[in-house]
């Protein structure tokens, strides 16, 4: 385990909307932390030994770090775009590596089998070629031109459509997904996965959305995403090993896994190995 490279990154530690004086006791990379609002109503995150940790309030969430972040929290320009609805989905605790949770989010080939009749359905299982790159200027993993047939791509979709996706990995435990927006074909819906590493093998997953959807009730939007993430959890808690193997001999990828291959390569390059297994055991 190496914490060093990942310790200086930003991580979600709670919802802004749920900040209160009593605070939320949680953990970040094995250290107990308290996320609360102070007397002035400002967010305050306290580490295990009482030290004050850095704080950012963005994308519906409170962000913090155990280290000294060299970079500002990554941008999501759509978060400032008028007309979008911002949805705090809440939290799903998953007994898996935070890196496995992100890798699963980047995967479309599991849709017909894990999210059957929602995000995918047999016989529409083929993953067509798509493009993957590590964008050196922003140091992010990007997958584009990802297309998949979906029976019910979004709460706002009626009937099956071929959905187009783009994926971004701007931080080791965060991913931003851009997805065909059924009511507004010229725009992308934004669905993010913010993962809080509680420890190397357990995490809190905080999905967040920025959508063009004025029709669906908030309850239905949240319920839709919760269903998806609970289906993912049944997979994530049953993968062996629980840590993400970076040893190439441990698992067998195919062409459909190009995003995962690039993500693992990018993690290795940056020594982002908290939650990874480097050597086969």
């Amino acid at each position, binding site marked *: 385990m190496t914490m060093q490279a990942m310790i200086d990154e930003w991580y979600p530690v709670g919802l802004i909307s749920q900040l209160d004086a009593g605070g939320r006791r949680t953990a970040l990379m094995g250290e107990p932390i308290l996320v609360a609002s102070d007397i002035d109503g400002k967010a305050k995150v306290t580490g295990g030994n009482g030290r004050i940790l850095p704080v950012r309030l963005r994308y519906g969430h409170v962000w913090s770090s155990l280290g000294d972040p060299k970079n500002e929290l990554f941008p999501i320009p759509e978060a400032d775009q008028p007309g979008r609805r911002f949805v705090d989905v809440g939290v799903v605790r998953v007994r898996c590596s935070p890196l496995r949770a992100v890798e699963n989010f980047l995967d479309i*080939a*599991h849709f017909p*089998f894990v999210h059957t009749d929602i995000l995918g359905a047999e016989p529409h299982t083929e993953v067509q070629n798509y493009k993957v790159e590590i964008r050196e200027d922003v140091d992010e993993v990007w997958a584009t031109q990802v297309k998949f047939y979906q029976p019910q791509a979004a709460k706002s979709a009626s009937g099956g459509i071929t959905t187009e996706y783009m994926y971004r990995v701007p931080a080791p435990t965060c991913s931003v997904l851009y997805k065909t927006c059924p009511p507004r074909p010229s725009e992308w819906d934004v669905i993010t996965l913010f993962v809080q590493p509680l420890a190397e093998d357990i995490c809190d997953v905080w999905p967040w959305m920025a959508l063009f959807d004025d029709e669906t009730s908030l309850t239905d939007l949240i319920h839709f995403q919760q269903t998806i993430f609970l289906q993912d959890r049944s997979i994530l808690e049953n993968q*062996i090993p629980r840590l993400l193997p970076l040893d190439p001999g441990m698992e067998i990828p*195919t062409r459909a896994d190009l995003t995962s291959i690039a993500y693992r390569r990018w993690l290795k390059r940056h020594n982002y190995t908290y939650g990874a297994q480097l050597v086969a055991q």
Partner: protein
Amino acid sequence: MLADTTGSWTPVALSADLPAGTVNPARIATESIALWRSDSGRVAASADRCPHRGMRLSHGFVRGEAISCIYHGWSYAQAGNCLRIPAHPGLVPPETIRVVTHAVEEADGVIWVAFGTPASIPPKLDGFVPLRSLTILAMTAQIEAAAGAVANSEGLIESGTIRLLLSTQHEGETLVHVLVKDDADVATRITASRTAENLRRTAEDLQGKGSVQ
């Protein structure tokens, strides 16, 4: 468990508990396995891990003569070779993609899985048939004490009118298959089932006492 120099047979499940077209998790020695029966009735055992992304195959599904992983639908034959990768329907999976498999024997209503390469065949039940299985949170020694008899080299305990076939699991658990005479009537079978449940309580009490000493 019948051990010889090259391997051993483990009684992993009763035939009745593995219908056609289903998969269950099971254990041999320290290893988790996926135990499955094809639609035509053939039993197979493989490592409980899909080599693609490490998902447990025992969470998968059986179709025809193949087992599929629930994560991405990769399917495997009884011999362990990958048959199909749904993300690439036109691709013939290379021979190198396979799951580790174990030899299986099914006889007298019991499914045996080989650990290693046993030279012999699984032991015969000699006029006994399986009644039910139960998991006891105790080790062999406590079960022997509760039964008032010692397991033979085949892992079989003779206790009154019943026979117990033991399979050591993990973390202090033992899977016990309860056997009765093949001509036992309903009343005898009900009594045998209750006897086994009492034996479980006694063995678990002994185990509990052992752990606080």
